[in-house]
């Protein structure tokens, strides 16, 4: 009985721990992210779920009109010079940060400079290199830091600190002198670009171009009089306090780097200028935002409070949706998604005529579905398939030699064409992935970029594929069902590399193997690898055909076509073609948007009908779960940028 006292104490402690740890009340809109929100610092964002938050907590210079994806003004008006190189933005004078400070052009200069600085190591900094001088500045600072580290070795700490500050002042001056980014007034921002960029407004609407509040990011410690001046005219007039009073940033005396402690993105600290403010963010539990009372256009916001709940396990996420506590599930990548879709198809088939009537009467699909009787057993209307701004493909290794030194048969475009034409993509999306994705032959998803029509690529043609392969010198000469070259050498066993996270790529790879063995008479060996190892093999060119896929970043065909540029960092295929490079360069210098699209279309035609560095399978789709009619405000455009403030849940 000695144990009784400690046991009781334990039970009481446990009960207290659980009681005290309570959840906030249910928000007006609750949605589930399968992945955690990684950062609320717009310049360092890369993930879709993070960017979705950026559009709530911050407001950039422009935003997209979700339905047809044109850019509209959010907080600004703009003028574009005739050569399409100078953009002058005029900011709203009434825009405020959530602490009451005015939003000025200096905030944008500060945020964009953060993204350009190599010290921040922003993954999307390459998007900012379109600004005139940004690349020069980036390289200058990178080199200066390398020099600093070399010279710092012989110095003591005080000397290093002084030098780091001197270098920082020099960096300030260098930025102002070289980079075409200037606040010409408190509410006027002038941006000069390196070359005509018709899609610059589309970029500006992207989350990483959102402004940040410098005193917050740097943790300025200032007295009340200064705070009042910030409130009056912004921080730029006063300027930063001395280094020790900037709590979250410092200059590293060893490397000279501008070091940032990313602690300002937590609730209570984060200051934003968007329609919502952050109320709570608890690691792996959820993120809660509510209407920003200082936002300039209150009518925009449809849900007072929004909760973003993290449920890592997709199966649990689906069950949580089924339990009715969640309005929107953003990812349904469960193993049985094909079965869920079959239930949806059963429902649509049951009410096919009613749906057709509703659509022809001008109602949306969701509105029509909401007016129909509830689904019975084995039917379902709350799962939705939305095409995305992404393309699923397999990459051909285009280098003349393979990783192990053997000659690469896929260096020959005719062989690649044969492998593309022998694939029945419709069969794959119907029976293998079971998601009925739109079959694709071009790299850029059709209908995703206003004004651009991607060319049609190679169609399924097994007989034509065999002819292509024969023309490349590979045919079945001895009648054993396998193709060989003129010397009787068999076609090398095709090394098909895929990643083993999830079953999608294993299943597709199996189907591809069967099609190629049957239609072309080649032997194919599958090699599944865990994603880190898979990526490493891809990078080193240790594959013949490898699983690929790409999501576009911005509304221009180059976001896909640049993958095929010689030496591009994401060109894992080792593809290099002078005509493609020349066309891409020509497009980059073309100021007229329509002529530019024509050049890019020609470039893509070359890529998908002649050179085919990749086997394009289909457009990626995203699965959502929500009750049609109850959740409104979702965008169905392939870019799938969902502004949470446009959404509303009726329960």
């Amino acid at each position, binding site marked *: 009985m000695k144990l009784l006292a400690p046991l009781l104490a334990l039970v009481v402690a446990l009960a207290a721990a*659980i009681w005290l740890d309570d959840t906030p009340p249910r928000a007006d809109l609750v949605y589930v992210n399968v992945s955690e929100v990684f950062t609320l610092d717009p310049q360092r964002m890369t993930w879709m779920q993070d960017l979705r938050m950026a559009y709530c907590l911050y407001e950039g210079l422009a935003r997209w009109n979700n339905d047809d994806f044109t850019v509209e003004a959010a907080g600004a008006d703009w003028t574009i010079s005739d050569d399409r190189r100078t953009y002058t933005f005029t900011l709203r004078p009434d825009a405020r940060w959530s602490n009451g400070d005015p939003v000025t052009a200096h905030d944008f200069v500060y945020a964009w400079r953060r993204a350009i600085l190599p010290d921040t190591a922003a993954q999307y900094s390459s998007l900012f290199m379109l600004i005139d001088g940004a690349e020069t500045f980036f390289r200058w600072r990178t080199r200066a830091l390398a020099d600093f580290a070399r010279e710092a070795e012989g110095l003591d700490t005080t000397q290093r600190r002084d030098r780091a500050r001197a270098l920082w002042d020099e960096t300030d001056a260098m930025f102002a002198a070289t980079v075409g980014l200037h606040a010409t007034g408190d509410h006027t921002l002038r941006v000069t670009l390196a070359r005509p960029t018709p899609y610059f407004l589309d970029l500006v609407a992207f989350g990483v171009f959102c402004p940040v509040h410098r005193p917050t990011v740097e943790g300025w410690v200032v007295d009340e009089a200064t705070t009042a001046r910030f409130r009056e005219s912004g921080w730029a007039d006063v300027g930063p306090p001395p280094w020790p009073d900037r709590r979250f940033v410092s200059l590293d005396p060893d490397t000279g780097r501008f070091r940032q402690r990313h602690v300002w993105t937590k609730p209570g600290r984060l200051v934003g200028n968007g329609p919502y403010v952050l109320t709570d963010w608890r690691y792996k539990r959820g993120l809660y935002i509510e209407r920003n009372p200082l936002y300039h256009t209150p009518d925009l916001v449809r849900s007072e409070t929004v909760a973003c709940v993290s449920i890592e396990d997709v199966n649990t996420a689906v069950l949580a949706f089924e339990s009715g506590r969640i309005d929107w599930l953003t990812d349904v990548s469960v193993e049985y998604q094909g079965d869920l879709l079959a239930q949806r198809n059963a429902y649509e088939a049951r009410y096919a005529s009613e749906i057709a009537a509703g659509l022809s009467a001008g109602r949306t699909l969701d509105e029509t579905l909401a007016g129909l009787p509830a689904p019975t057993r084995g039917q379902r209307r709350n799962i939705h398939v939305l095409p995305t701004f992404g393309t699923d493909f397999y990459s051909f290794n285009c280098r003349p030699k393979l990783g192990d030194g053997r000659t690469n048969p896929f260096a020959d475009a005719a062989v690649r064409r044969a492998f593309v034409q022998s694939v029945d993509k419709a069969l794959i999306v119907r029976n293998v992935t079971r998601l009925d994705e739109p079959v694709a032959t071009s790299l850029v998803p059709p209908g995703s970029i206003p004004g651009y029509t991607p060319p049609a690529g190679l169609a399924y043609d097994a007989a034509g594929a065999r002819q292509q392969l024969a023309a490349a010198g590979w045919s079945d000469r001895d009648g054993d069902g396998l193709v060989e070259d003129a010397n009787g050498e068999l076609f090398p066993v095709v090394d098909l590399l895929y990643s083993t996270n999830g079953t999608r790529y294993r299943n597709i790879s199996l189907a591809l193997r069967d099609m190629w063995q049957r239609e072309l008479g080649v032997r194919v060996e599958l090699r599944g690898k865990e994603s880190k190892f898979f990526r490493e093999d891809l990078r080193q060119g240790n594959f013949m055909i490898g699983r690929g896929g790409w999501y576009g970043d911005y509304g221009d065909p180059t976001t896909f076509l640049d993958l095929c540029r010689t030496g591009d960092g994401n060109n894992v295929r080792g593809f290099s073609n002078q005509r493609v490079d020349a066309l891409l360069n020509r497009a980059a210098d073309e100021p007229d948007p329509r002529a530019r699209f024509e050049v890019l279309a020609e470039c893509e035609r070359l890529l998908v009908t002649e050179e085919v560095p990749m086997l394009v399978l289909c457009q990626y789709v995203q699965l959502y779960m929500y009750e049609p009619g109850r959740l409104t405000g979702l965008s169905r455009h392939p870019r799938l940028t969902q502004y949470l403030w446009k959404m509303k849940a009726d329960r």
Partner: protein
Amino acid sequence: MTGLIVRRLLLLPFILMVIYTVTFCLAWLIPGNPLESGEGRRPPPEIVDAMLAQYKLDSPWTFYWDYLGKASGVAWVLGSAEKPFDFGPSLTHKDWTVNEILAAGLPVSMTLGLMAILLACGIGLTAGVIGGVRPGSFVDLATLVVALIGVSLPSFVIGASLLIVFGVWLKVLPVGGWGGVSHAILPAVTLALPFAAYIARLTRFGMIDEMNADYIRTARAKGVAEWRVVIKHALKNAALPVLSFLGPAAAMAMTGSFVVEKIFAVPGIGTHFVNAVLGKDLTLIMGVVLAYSTILIVFNLVVDVAYRWVDPRI
């Protein structure tokens, strides 16, 4: 006893040092770069270099010593770090430090683990006593069968079934999340069941042995009430094997709840064991491993001390 405690505590830094070194070597060998996110998307090489430099990941040697200094508190003692036991920023969860992640997750995992163990003791001991008092009876057989199922069914089956029944069909308990008793019930039960089953079997066999012992017959002959015989005399001895099982079981419940935490979306630390490794989040791997090693070592020590206290013969 004091000698034992002092000896163990003195050994602690050396054990941790070995664990740190081995973990570091293994973690460094994971291919890829922790700072690249997304499938296949690759930032420009200059940015990758800048990121590696920012987190001191450009050389394993400097990272090893730098991290060791900060995590152990040596750097703080020497005055080059702001605070001791600093596990650094997480490489994948960019806005969080490893310390914050541990502080958020550890209490949750430990609460859940302890709840599960208490539940397991309650269920297991009761079932074991009921079965052990009348071996071969219907009740005994029933508890044995249930125990067998409890031991052999994997927790993802039990967990998912409980979620579907209580969360989706009956809608009495929430699906996923943490906060308040209602969220804790299902994961605690799921986590407790295998332990409860094992404890039930241990208790049952102990009880069968003890009930036939001479001192029980003496007690009955003295006219002691039957429930007193069972609880005060027999169970006290029959439960000793349970006590020795509780040490590792409690440790397992608090560390090994990866599956349960994932199924019930419990914001504990268990999922990091796997996710940090998959993402090659070096600082998080080290932080989680070091924190857990410390807890395990201390916990084992506590169990050993408790043993001697409960049963001075050992």
